[in-house]
């Protein structure tokens, strides 16, 4: 029942790099994506990317009990990004903080363009993203896993949104910063796209970049997204067949 795509045979396909883990500048960390990993949720997915471990549950479309949130012509999409207390080096106090509130908001906005919300007026689709272990890039990992969980829940979508970050460390623009690279890095550019059209649904930039470096980072992120996109689809195929 459970689909596992382990990226074990991953080999560098480009020029050598000085990255601590030996990756090329345009190389993702090893990853795996599984669909349908939880019983109670309507849809679910599990994703590992480097040291990140992310679980996503989707409930809905279902009735929305809070009347003032209700939309007469479409479903509401609510995403909750949450870190487990044990997911980081120093225990995180349970409950939302400002960072998770912001990430929850932009995650909703990243996924929303792909979902046919207009098919489910007055209802809600709830996406719960749990970061079980964090090692840099969790917001993108959460979005990538959430799309798979939505598909697993049978929610009709235009496309499977996928997300990946590029950044800059030691003056070089590289793909998919690890936690260590992010900490010492100069910039981080998380991006989410709808791969069919290449349209961008999440974009942030944190740190200093020239406009050229930014463009390079943006392109690199999109390449990373395309690669993860394949794994998303394989996870769904493994779960449901073609």
């Amino acid at each position, binding site marked *: 029942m459970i689909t596992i795509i382990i990226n074990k045979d991953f080999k560098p396909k480009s020029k050598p790099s000085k990255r601590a883990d030996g990756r090329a500048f345009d190389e993702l960390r090893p990853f795996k994506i599984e669909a349908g990993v*939880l*019983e*109670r*949720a*309507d849809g679910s997915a599990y994703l590992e990317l480097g*040291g990140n*471990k992310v*679980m*996503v*549950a989707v*409930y*809905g*479309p*279902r*009735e929305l009990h809070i009347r003032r949130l209700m939309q007469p012509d479409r479903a509401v999409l609510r995403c*909750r990004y*949450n870190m*487990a*207390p*044990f*997911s*980081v*080096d*120093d*225990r995180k106090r*349970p*409950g*939302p903080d400002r960072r998770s509130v912001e990430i929850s908001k932009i995650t909703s906005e990243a996924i929303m363009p792909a979902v046919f919300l207009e*098919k*489910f007026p007055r*209802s809600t689709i*709830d996406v*719960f993203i*749990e970061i*079980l*272990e*964090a*090692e840099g890039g969790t917001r993108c990992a959460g979005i990538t896993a959430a799309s798979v969980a939505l598909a697993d829940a*049978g929610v*009709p979508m235009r496309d499977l949104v996928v997300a990946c970050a590029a950044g800059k460390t030691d003056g070089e623009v590289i793909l998919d910063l690890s936690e260590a690279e992010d900490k010492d890095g100069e910039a981080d550019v998380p991006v989410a796209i709808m791969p069919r059209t290449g349209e961008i649904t999440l974009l942030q930039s944190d740190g200093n970049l020239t406009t050229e470096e930014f463009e390079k980072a943006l392109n690199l992120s999109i390449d990373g997204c395309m690669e993860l996109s394949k794994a998303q689809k394989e996870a769904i195929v493994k779960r449901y067949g073609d």
Partner: protein
Amino acid sequence: MVIKMVKIIPEIIKESLTNLVKSGERSDGRTFDEYRDIVLETGIIDKAEGSARVKIGKTQIMVGAKPQLGEPFSDTPNVGVLMTNSELIPMAAPDFESGPPDERSVELSRVTDRCMREAGVVDLEKLCIVEGKKVWMVFLDIHILDYDGNLMDAAVLGSMAALMNTKIPEAKLENDEVVVDHEKLVPLPIKEKALMCTFAKIDGELIVDPQLEEEQVMEARISIGMRADGSICAMQKGGMKPLNKDEILKAVQRTSEITKKLMEHLPQNNH
């Protein structure tokens, strides 16, 4: 595609489950004293000093243990501290909600905490570094991922396993300074083993390890924490109906048997 309907029709389920119990059966074919399949993995979260994932049937939880340096309580200056927290995160069930822990979640963590603490699972005196000043505080965080009944037993099993899996940095007092060496990790000092065994009462019968639909129709619940030596370290009745004395004493007796088997799921040593 239509909006999903609430799936349970409690009265019908109740009748069917009750009838099964009357004839000595359960909906998944188990006997009254039989647990669902248990899968226990430890050391699965690298960033947590101790961790465990427990599956009891379709119920799935994760427990992480993280030590922190802190001050001891003023009335117990020479012992470390064990803090247990649980969250019924909305991922785990359609009726769990975001927000501060509700009463079910508070009860779960407090019962787990009492079970670990009263059994003397961790040798808390060894967690004292400088009396009255510096001790290790171990945070146990119980994260419920998938809820199909019997969280109590899962939480205690996962907590026990996570504690046995926990390594803490060596901390020494050198020249009046506490030196914590993150390269030298020592196992958390485990003194005792304790697990919990929960029974649901349906139609007057006690059945162990209730799954969700059994919990939804049960009359009452009794959870019994027991140490490896057979002593009772915690007990908690739940549910809206009473139990009688015989039922309780029978549950204690059966717990003694079942706990022995449950203990086999724990690793032999802590590592």
